[in-house]
């Protein structure tokens, strides 16, 4: 394709009108984040809800499932982003484009991350205040821990949804 002698990072190519746009690395990571958090949190709830229904609440074993869910959501986000990046790079190479410059983050990615952060930070104070109220009511630690984990996860999913919305529809709302 274009000459690759120069040292400076190459500009992403200018797509033609009918050409599909390239999904950058940050947008791929946002998709991965949605699925990683939805699946691990769903699995956590699927494990603990039957236990809550069947056992007395102070005997419910929730710590091990929670640690697994947290660990797996982190691992899944990292591995998923790597695989999404490799897949994208292979596809771009087949299309004859330079994967490095096409997938790289730019100032729009930064602006979108900020846009999403400013619209979804509410999850954090909700978690802190809710956990504080639950602790004051002296409910079982299962409820406090699960509340923190599930609402934080909802916040992460909301953040990724707002980012993808910004990528596809622009900075609205």
């Amino acid at each position, binding site marked *: 394709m274009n000459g690759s002698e120069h040292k400076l990072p190459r500009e992403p190519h200018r797509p033609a009108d009918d050409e599909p746009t390239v999904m950058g690395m940050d947008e791929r990571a946002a998709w991965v984040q949605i699925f990683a958090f939805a699946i691990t949190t769903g699995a956590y709830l699927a494990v603990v809800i039957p236990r809550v229904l069947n056992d007395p609440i102070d005997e419910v074993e929730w710590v091990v499932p929670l640690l697994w869910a947290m660990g797996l959501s982190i691992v899944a986000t990292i591995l998923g982003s790597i695989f999404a990046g490799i897949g994208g790079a292979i596809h771009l190479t087949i299309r004859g484009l330079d994967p490095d410059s096409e997938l790289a983050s730019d100032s729009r990615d930064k602006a979108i991350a900020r846009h999403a952060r400013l619209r979804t930070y509410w999850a954090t104070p909700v978690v802190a205040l809710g*956990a*504080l109220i639950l602790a*004051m009511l002296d409910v079982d630690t299962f409820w406090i821990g699960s509340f923190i984990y599930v609402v934080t996860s909802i916040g992460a999913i909301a953040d990724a949804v707002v980012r993808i919305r910004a990528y596809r529809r622009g900075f609205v709302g």
Partner: protein
Amino acid sequence: MTVTERTTIVGTILGLVTFLAFWTVIIVRAVTDDVPLQDVEWQGPMLTAILVGGALYALSYGIFAWQARGTRRSDERDYEIQRYAESAGAGVAGLGSLAALIMLTLDVDTFWVATTLFTVGYLASLVNSGVTIAAYRQGMP
């Protein structure tokens, strides 16, 4: 000074007073009753601190809003600054929630979990107001 800037400054002072009042009550109870800190009846003082602090903050906001009645109270800049500062404070509160979650999995006494959340929540509100005031004085990055 806009209404937001005024309420931020008053809120910082109110936050400091309620935070210190809560700890004074807890420590005085622990010392006078000669019990360990986590056995003190802490729920009542904490609830009172949050409710009274919140009510005074709401009252001060109401007064400032009433003084500025008939004028435009906040514009796009106020809105941006508020959002920016709240997300900065939320970052600190997030650390507190993570710490609380770890403490819960380690089965620490609920008193310490609640105290961590309360203290970090207070620090987050300090970050929030500090960033707000700095943004009014020096602009946003």
